[in-house]
């Protein structure tokens, strides 16, 4: 891969992250009641002045406060939570990140396999029965907020049939005799939220893959392959699929930002102890440091995911290395 392509993408990502940190700084200053009022509420004048000095709030906004903020952020210091007293934002986020990663990592994997598969098949057999039904269902799923899918699954499989627990990650107060038992409990709790995430994503991915494969099938090299007398299956496997997968993969990365919105609501429905439920807790308590930490974490992850997708795309498709 061209070094210049790589360098430009990395530079772009760094620039975007810089913007994000600047935006976060600005938002922190816009915050209602400004930081000094929040920090130094109901304090005598002397103690207040001392506190302002300690937080550097007596210095001018730019450059001193900005420099202090940026260097703290880069060192992984995102401040203290208001809601969870005495705990740092990084601490609170760290404890919540694993449930979210497991739920959405697995959900993405299932959705990518099933969604891309369904989309490829519908696009290949365009106008067929699978395409007709699949496309209709995908469109409906695409129009449905994730949490609605979650509520429907919850009421059918949990409340009515009683097959799965309704909320949380483990049964409250349960004691396990072994690791397998704990794992089984975890999986039972995971099943419904995971299905919700997967179903929510399958619609999007199948629509993406369908149009991607339809585009590919009109390319000259597919006509050439057909003229050479290759079987339809062979054309799909070795010519159309690999080329159609490329744009689909990029779109999956770009879509990550939208997926996060759905992620937050699914966790709320199932009371899954991840970043999503944390967002709602922080929102109702107006815990701004935590909200900002969440914004920083999620936006930087999305930027990095896009960077990885760009680099992969460049490595796989020589045409974009400009």
């Amino acid at each position: 891969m061209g070094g210049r392509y790589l360098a430009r993408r990395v530079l772009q990502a760094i620039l975007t992250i810089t913007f994000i940190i600047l935006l976060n700084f600005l938002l922190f200053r816009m915050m209602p009641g400004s930081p000094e009022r929040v920090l130094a509420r109901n304090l005598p004048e002397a103690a207040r002045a001392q506190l302002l000095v300690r937080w550097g709030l007596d210095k001018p906004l730019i450059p001193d406060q900005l420099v202090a903020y940026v260097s703290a952020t880069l060192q992984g210091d995102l401040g203290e939570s208001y809601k969870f007293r005495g705990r740092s934002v990084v601490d609170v986020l760290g404890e919540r990140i694993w449930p979210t990663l497991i739920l959405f990592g697995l959900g993405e994997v299932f959705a990518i396999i099933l969604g891309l598969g369904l989309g490829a098949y519908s696009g290949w057999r365009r106008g067929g029965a699978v395409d007709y039904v699949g496309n209709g269902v995908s469109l409906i799923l695409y129009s449905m907020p994730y949490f609605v899918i979650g509520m429907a699954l919850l009421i059918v499989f949990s409340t009515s049939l009683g097959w799965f627990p309704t909320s949380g990650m483990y049964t409250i107060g349960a004691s396990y005799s072994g690791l397998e038992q704990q794992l089984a409990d975890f999986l039972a709790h995971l099943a419904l939220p995971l299905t919700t995430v997967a179903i929510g994503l399958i619609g999007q991915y199948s629509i993406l893959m369908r149009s991607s494969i339809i585009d590919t099938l009109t390319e000259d090299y597919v006509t050439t392959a057909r003229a050479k007398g290759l079987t339809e299956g062979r054309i799909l496997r070795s010519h159309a699929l690999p080329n159609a997968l490329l744009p689909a993969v990029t779109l999956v990365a770009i879509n990550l930002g939208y997926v996060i919105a759905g992620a937050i609501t699914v966790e709320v429905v199932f009371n899954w102890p991840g970043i999503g439920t944390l967002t709602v807790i922080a929102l109702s308590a107006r815990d701004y440091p935590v909200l900002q930490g969440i914004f920083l974490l999620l936006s930087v992850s999305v930027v990095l995911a896009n960077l990885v997708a760009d680099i992969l795309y460049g490595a796989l498709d020589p045409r974009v290395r400009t």
Partner: protein
Amino acid sequence: MSGAAATPANLRGERLRLRLRNLADFGRRFARRRDGLIGLVILAVFAVLAIVPTLIVGPLETATTPSGLSLQAPGGAHLLGTDELGRDMLNLTVHGARISMVIGLLATAVTILLGAVIGIVSGYLGGTTDTILMRITDFFLVLPTFVLALILAPIILDLIGSDAQILGIPSTLFVIIVVIGITSWASTARIIRSQALSVKERMFVARARVIGGGGGHIMWRHILPNVLNLIVANTVLTFAGAILTETTLSFIGLGDPLLPSWGQILNMAQSTGAPGLGAWWYFAPPATCIVLVVLSFTLVGGALDDVLNPRMRSRR
């Protein structure tokens, strides 16, 4: 020009005839799209609900004026059952149509206005202005804008106070509208800019410049009419997105309990624990409405896109 003398009155008549013919032509092509028509019919029904909810189900029931008992199942006097306060679900859902559609409409207006202005200015002026505006646009495209909306909404709300009214809109709803606008204009701007770039190279723009047309005049009279097709198709698709974003924001607690949109009803259903109580009628009506409206907008938008911009077929 036709044979008649080119008097101003004749010109106006000619222009009107041309417009009407274009419109009729557009109508015929759109009518061939069955999916677009189905979407249009569904949207018309919801538009009626949104315009005259009180005629259909009476005034909005509040916590102090419920018409039934707590969480009654559908049937009898309450076709769609009641919520935990005894309010009729049909009443709430029909009034929710008005609130959701109005927020969606205003948020779409803000989005399109921002996107179109930035896209046209950026594409027409080019140079440094273009570079700076497109850097900002790219930034908003990469950002998970929903998360930005999440932290912007409470900050703005606390800044202006939650009891205030702005332009006659309660501040909670105003904030949702503004936040959706701020966070979703970027893709519109990108699309409009690329079209503006090609339009400005056309001969009539050069002619307008030669006879002394200023930048503002050219953008308004020459560029805008030629990107209008894109704006129309994009508006319809943006509307679908705005309704979904509003629903999600309200669901996680940024809505206004006194003005229940569909998302706000779902939020109340969730906090009451309706799924756990088996009260499916609490969330099924608003959820169905959201899916129908978003789906219809997507269908109409796709059909419009095909009819108006045949070269940029989206093939969804």
